[in-house]
């Protein structure tokens, strides 16, 4: 098939790149490799939570933080994408989210500290409205509510940790549990099952009534934190109704997989693209790019048992890290799926990791070396193809885990790659 610009990826970088092209009046095709484990690790969109991987002090103003990072590290992918791309990409995303029926909040002016499922404050830049009442900059007491038989959010663990880092003065945090009508704790159920059931009015009211009974002793101002299971497809409705039924502000906290927040975000944005006329090639992993004359001529997809070539004027390679197949790791080398290039910074197996899982991992920094225009380069430092651009975590040289910056980087590079692809 032929296309104007082909975008390959399953995450935020691919989605933002595709949307940018669509909004600019171009005709992108999104090549979606399939449901990826990226969905597990997304909840909020983090732009820059900490200035480096070892700092304990959260970044207050992510916009200023990224500007400082760019000034200090001119080779950082944020520097390559540029602060303007981050700002424009976020504006584009927030407008899009609204159009697609989401209610998201936040800006580059401020990181909110939101509690996680282990009760640790985490700086987040953009977040669904359903998480906003968890803002730890506010003083209202918190009740964390779990469900009997649901082990993927343990309010007692979260409350115990949170009470140690947050809980001065009037602030207080406590754990409660309620039961889910009809859910037998001996049977397997996941966040998705609960989310679907909470879309049922009778079920939700019964849960709300139980919570109200247990949370009132904490006073009128108490807010209630719940696992992020408040509706799968009708989440804003569920949120509004649940909150009024409960009579207290409520907020969601991301859980163990499956992450309902990630599913809502990616599924609905992808669906919205399709509804607004973007062609999507479903569940087709890309496995080779064809180069000639300094340009990428086609990429080959594995699609429904046969190979399908896609020919486009420009290509955006927006697979994000190993999570969604951006690299193929052999014993001695790590290669990319398009050009079969040995990626920058890949070493022998034990050199790919740190002794501790909780420190910066060398393998996370593996990726394409890119030009200032985000073109992947070969060993000679020259672009492999003048019309191919990389977005997201597949760019070499950064590890989003320690700085909490995966989302922002995906947006900035996705937006910038789209601009470059249009010019190519």
């Amino acid at each position: 098939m032929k296309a104007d610009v082909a975008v390959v990826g399953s995450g935020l970088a691919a989605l933002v790149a595709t949307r940018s092209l669509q909004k600019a009046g171009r005709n992108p095709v999104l090549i979606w490799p399939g449901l990826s484990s990226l969905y597990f690790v997304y909840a909020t969109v983090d732009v820059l939570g900490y200035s480096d991987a070892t700092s304990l002090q959260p970044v207050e103003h992510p916009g200023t933080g990224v500007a400082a990072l760019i000034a200090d590290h001119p080779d950082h992918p944020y520097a390559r994408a540029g602060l303007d791309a981050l700002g424009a990409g976020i504006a584009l995303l927030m407008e899009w989210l609204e159009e697609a029926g989401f209610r998201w909040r936040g800006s580059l002016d401020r990181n909110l500290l939101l509690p996680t499922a282990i009760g640790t404050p985490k700086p987040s830049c953009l977040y669904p409205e359903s998480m906003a009442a968890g803002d730890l900059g506010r003083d209202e007491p918190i009740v964390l509510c779990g469900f009997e038989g649901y082990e993927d959010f343990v309010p007692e663990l979260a409350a115990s940790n949170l009470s140690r880092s947050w809980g001065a003065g009037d602030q207080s945090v406590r754990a409660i549990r309620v039961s889910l009508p009809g859910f037998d704790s001996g049977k397997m159920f996941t966040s998705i099952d609960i989310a679907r059931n909470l879309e049922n009015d009778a079920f939700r009211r019964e849960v709300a009534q139980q919570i109200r009974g247990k949370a009132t002793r904490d006073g009128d101002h108490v807010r209630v934190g719940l696992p992020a299971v408040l509706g799968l497809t009708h989440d804003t409705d569920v949120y509004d109704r649940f909150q009024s039924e409960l009579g207290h502000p409520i907020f969601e906290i991301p859980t163990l997989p499956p992450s309902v927040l990630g599913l809502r975000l990616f599924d609905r944005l992808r669906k919205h693209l399709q509804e607004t006329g973007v062609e999507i090639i479903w569940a087709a992993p890309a496995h080779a790019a064809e180069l000639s004359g300094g340009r990428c001529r086609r990429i080959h997809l594995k699609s429904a048992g046969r190979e399908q070539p896609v020919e486009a004027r420009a290509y955006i390679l927006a697979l994000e890290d190993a999570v969604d197949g951006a690299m193929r790791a052999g014993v001695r080398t790590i290669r990319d799926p398009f050009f079969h290039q040995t990626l920058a910074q890949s070493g022998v197996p034990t050199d790919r990791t740190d002794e501790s899982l909780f420190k910066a991992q060398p393998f996370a920094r593996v990726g394409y070396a890119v030009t200032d225009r985000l073109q992947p380069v070969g060993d000679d430092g020259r672009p492999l193809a003048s019309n191919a651009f990389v977005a997201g975590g597949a760019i070499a040289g950064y590890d989003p885990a320690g700085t909490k910056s995966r989302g922002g980087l995906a947006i900035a590079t996705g937006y910038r790659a789209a601009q470059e692809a249009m010019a190519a």
Partner: protein
Amino acid sequence: MPDTTTGVVVIGGGSTGAGVLRDLSLRGIDAVLVEKGDLASGTTGRSHGLLHSGGRYCVNDLAAAIECVEEGRVLRRIAKTTIEDTGGYFVSVSEEDLAWEPRFVEGCGKAGITCERISVEEARRREPALSKHVRTVFWIPEDGHLDPFYLVMGNVESARRRGAQVRTYTEVTGFTRDGNRLTGVLTRDTMTGEETSIGCKAVINATGAWAGFVARLLEVEVKVVPVKGVMVVLSHRVAHATINRCHKPGDGDIIVPALSVAILGTTSARVPHPEVLPIEWDEVRHMIEEGALMADGVSTARAMRAYAGVRPLYDLGAEAEGREMSRNFAVIDHEERDGIAGFASIVGGKVTTYRLMAERVTDLVAHRLGVTTSCTTAEGPLNDRDDDLDQLRHRPAQLGVPKPHGDELSLQALVCECELVRPQDVAPWFADPAVRTLEDIRRRTRTGMGPCQAAICSYRLAGRLVTDRHQDGPTATRAMADLLETRWRGVRPVFWGSQLRQAQVTAGLHLELFNLDRQLMFQSQPPSHALLPPPLPREGRGGGEEAHAPEVASKR
């Protein structure tokens, strides 16, 4: 006065110590087992889980082979629930292997090992995984898989039902004596530092590779040579039966299908200390290449982790090294040899022969104590309540130990999806004082042993530390992090293929979704440095005070 008294103190919580404890309890002798780590956390739990028919030793070490034959048959009677009777193949893939064959056949004959030569075609029909390199095949029906964790837990639970006690994370720091007679042991809790004394009439040193360190506390020598062996865990069973290379034992020449995985073993290298067990990625790679000569699927299977164990080879004074040394065992009567009454050591040997080792040393100690009851450990099953036992994979909870795999798996709640562990399988262990870490839960239930290496279940287990054990959040979080870090150590030497994706999901969950790295940094701060939210930009929280942010990385 000692804090408590008993008949015999058993030092060491591996298969030998657990076997000794059961043997003593069956003879009606009061006993306490002390172990400096967890049960099955040393050599036993780090074995490759091959229930030896004896085929591997029948050429070079006939005595050990004969013991394996006899004990393998005993274990099939008494510990059926810990055994998967897979049978095994011995395969030749090279000229040298073919030259070894006559000696192998002769050795099997001498040791009494059932051994049947089958055609390669027939072997492939039964075991399609056999590689194209395979030239000849022997079928050895008595090779199998022995689950070392369940073996130890089964012995210990059997002894506990008869009143024996177990103290984990309890290190022996010294002995009390009355002249030449031992009267007790001094112990220290390795976690709390609490010191206690246990009065007793005799002490059995069943510490395997650590036996020399215990003996040294009494200024006597027990020469044990620690020899490291590395194992690789493949994410699926690869073959139906165990596969051995038919040659002089070497690296990477055993494949053991074990529950949901296959274990590829092993190497042999003398190490300076039983706890210094480095694993190099290229030795792992070499083993995979060697294993791939025997079975297809070894090189393409996902290597999930690597681990190393240490063989406790007893130095009989010969010149032999490593694999050349006998896998036989020895009972040391320190009263006779060193003039220390009430002290015996059991050294050498292997998991397959643990019961016989326990019997021999218990015979000696019982005799010295004047107990005439004879050994009955070969008679009844570990679980005395049920004669109709099934094999490992399908067993119900016959050991009085919660089982790892449910009967009806459909739609049951699971704590660990990889290994199909249910809440009711883990819950009782949170009430057992011998269980001190989440790794201990793993050893008893297999939670966290699957492809995700505890990425998911670690959170649920940490939750249970708070809800079931009433620990505080930071303690539970530290325990969760410790479990993940221990698993991570085994992942690092096999970091290729799907392992990167898995690691990124694990890191994404714990670092990005949970912010666990900051939680650990925060916990390691003095309490005054609270992780307060930063001052708000406009509304303000009073401004003035800046939250303090010392740059301390989480230390482990």
